[in-house]
């Protein structure tokens, strides 16, 4: 049985300030027993990648609504890879049309949650897919 809590970084990149979704997801993950670190608004890809490394998280949840996802998300995954982070689950939520999803998955995003997704689905996906040994009591 897992006795170490899943650690998730909830990040909001880009210039957009609409944080309703990010905050709701952060709270839902907390309510589901995960440990959540929220970056706050307007974080650069560099800031997000370095927070993920410092906080040693199991998953990163990125909220992006502005349409800048094809520019910003590949940069974040690239920076993480460059820092040797390969076992962190990356999920994205926001206004992302179907057409853009294959490219984002190619870039290293594990799952994209589109408008209308339930927080329960997000919780379950993260639980089922975190790669690190979250079951080992350290």
């Amino acid at each position, binding site marked *: 049985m897992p006795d170490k809590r899943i650690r998730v970084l909830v990040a909001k990149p*880009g*210039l957009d*300030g609409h944080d*309703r979704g990010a905050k709701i997801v952060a709270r*839902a993950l907390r309510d589901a027993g995960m440990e959540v670190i929220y970056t*706050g*608004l307007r974080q650069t890809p560099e800031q997000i990648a370095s927070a993920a490394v410092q906080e040693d998280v199991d998953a990163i949840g990125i909220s992006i609504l502005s*349409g800048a996802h094809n520019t910003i998300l590949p940069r974040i995954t690239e920076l993480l890879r460059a820092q040797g982070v390969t076992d962190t689950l990356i999920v994205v939520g926001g*206004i992302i049309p179907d057409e853009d999803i294959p490219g984002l998955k190619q870039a290293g995003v594990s799952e994209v949650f589109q408008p209308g997704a339930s927080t329960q689905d997000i919780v379950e996906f993260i639980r089922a897919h975190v790669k690190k040994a979250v079951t080992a009591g350290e």
Partner: protein
Amino acid sequence: MTTKEELKEAASTTVAAAEESPELSKAARPKPAPAGPAGTRFTTLSDVPVQPLYTADDLAGFDYSRELGDPGDYPYTRGIHRTMYRGKLWTMRQFSGFGTPEDTNARLHYLLKQGQTGLSIAFDLPTLMGYDSDHLLAEGEVGRCGVNVSSLADMETVLRGLPLEQVTTSMTINSPAAMIWAMYLVAAEKSGADLKKISGTTQNDILKEYIAQKEYIFPPEPSMRLVVDTITFGAKEVPRWNPISISGYHIREAGSTAVQELAFTLRDGIEYVDWVLRTGMSVDEFAPRLSFFFNAHNDLFEEVAKYRAARKVWARVMRERFGAANPRSWLCRFHTQTAGCSLTAQQPYNNVVRTTIQALAGVLGGTQSLHTNSLDEAWALPTESAVTLALRTQQVIAHESGVPNTVDPLAGSYFVEKLTLETERACYEYFDRIDAMGGMVEAIEKGFPQREIHEAAYKYQQQLERKEKIIVGVNEFVTDEKRPIELLIIDESVAHHQNDRLAALRKSRDNARVQSALEALGSAAGGDANLMSYLMECVRAYSTLGEMCDVLRRVFGTYDEPAF
């Protein structure tokens, strides 16, 4: 012709008839029989319990002239004009902006040709945050959520060929509102328009940015100074302009209830009045140009009650709290936009129906202008055909539904009047709590409105997931369909176009003049002069938005929200 007396009499007869009617009295009222499955809670969208039946008993002691007044009379519950839409329809004002200034100029011309009666400009995120298109942080964002405007040259292109003295223009811009307004004024001047004649609105509501939309640059104090500067400058130099649109729209989009939207917006209004009064200007010199902006969500009656309560509360606040003597200072004039957050990505055609109900709420609530969202906006900025349908929705309500024929048609409804009274009472309760904190700036610094909104948003999300609230096509009546609509695609060519223009501008302008204008702005910002004329001089020299904001970032500092 209907006289004032006849109107009054008609209204009181409706109430009186019910009072005398035994079958509607409380004793004879049928037991509230639940109409839904056992355990169903009947509530408004904002989770306010709704009774099965409203009768005269719910309005015991209701005084027509105290609670309502005729349309055009204090406290304006029934509307700010005597004849409302019989005299003039609401302004049909579609919020528009995408891509390059050329793209947006073409869309604005198109909408006027389709019968739109006002203009409204949407800016992209770099513009909203005071960065030029070639700033590192602008990458990926240029032209995506609105039009990119980096300098006067872009503004001139956006406005090219538009009749600025005949049509009113609204601009959704907040942190850099003073700079963008300066661009508009200089562009208008250069096109030969008289600043005393032009009219329009700058949103310029920084408090709701800290509360809800979070597009702030500077800390609250200097941000408020910029707002005050625009209000006092406008009162003297651009007397027909609405220098601020005090906005509940974004508060609601962030997940607030209808009452929170109303209470936080009007309390923001009180805060702005307090700050302007401190400059020594008298309330009646500027209050008539304060304007408001509300959301129209799905719950028809709750929304109508909100608009009616808004007018009533604001009239009382201005007259009793601030002692305004000019009746124009008492008027809550407002724009309405249908609720973007109610639109679903799934089954997008359903959004046309939602928008129709919401637009109807705005009209039944007596709005002065209206934006109807397009069916594709859960996915992207609207295509031309989607925005045309949204405009047609307003035109059908205006010209086919018959709703505009009479003023405040829902008045006298036991339910709507009761809901209006309850909304008003709940609004004053929030005022008391915020007053006790020392005002809205203090409440924001404590995170109070932010937390209240987040609680409401989270509760609503949980209700959706438990199916206590239904969204058609999302948590009920779900189909597995491929997206049936085409989307407007904005690509990186916009950023390249804008960056090339900016590079050319920086070469061709008189850079010595730019430098001296920016330096003058910086030293004025360090003192307490009104910054509008300094900004206009910067704009005339073709300083960029980013350059002006950078000067103020250095003087004012920047703001990051503390964790709440």
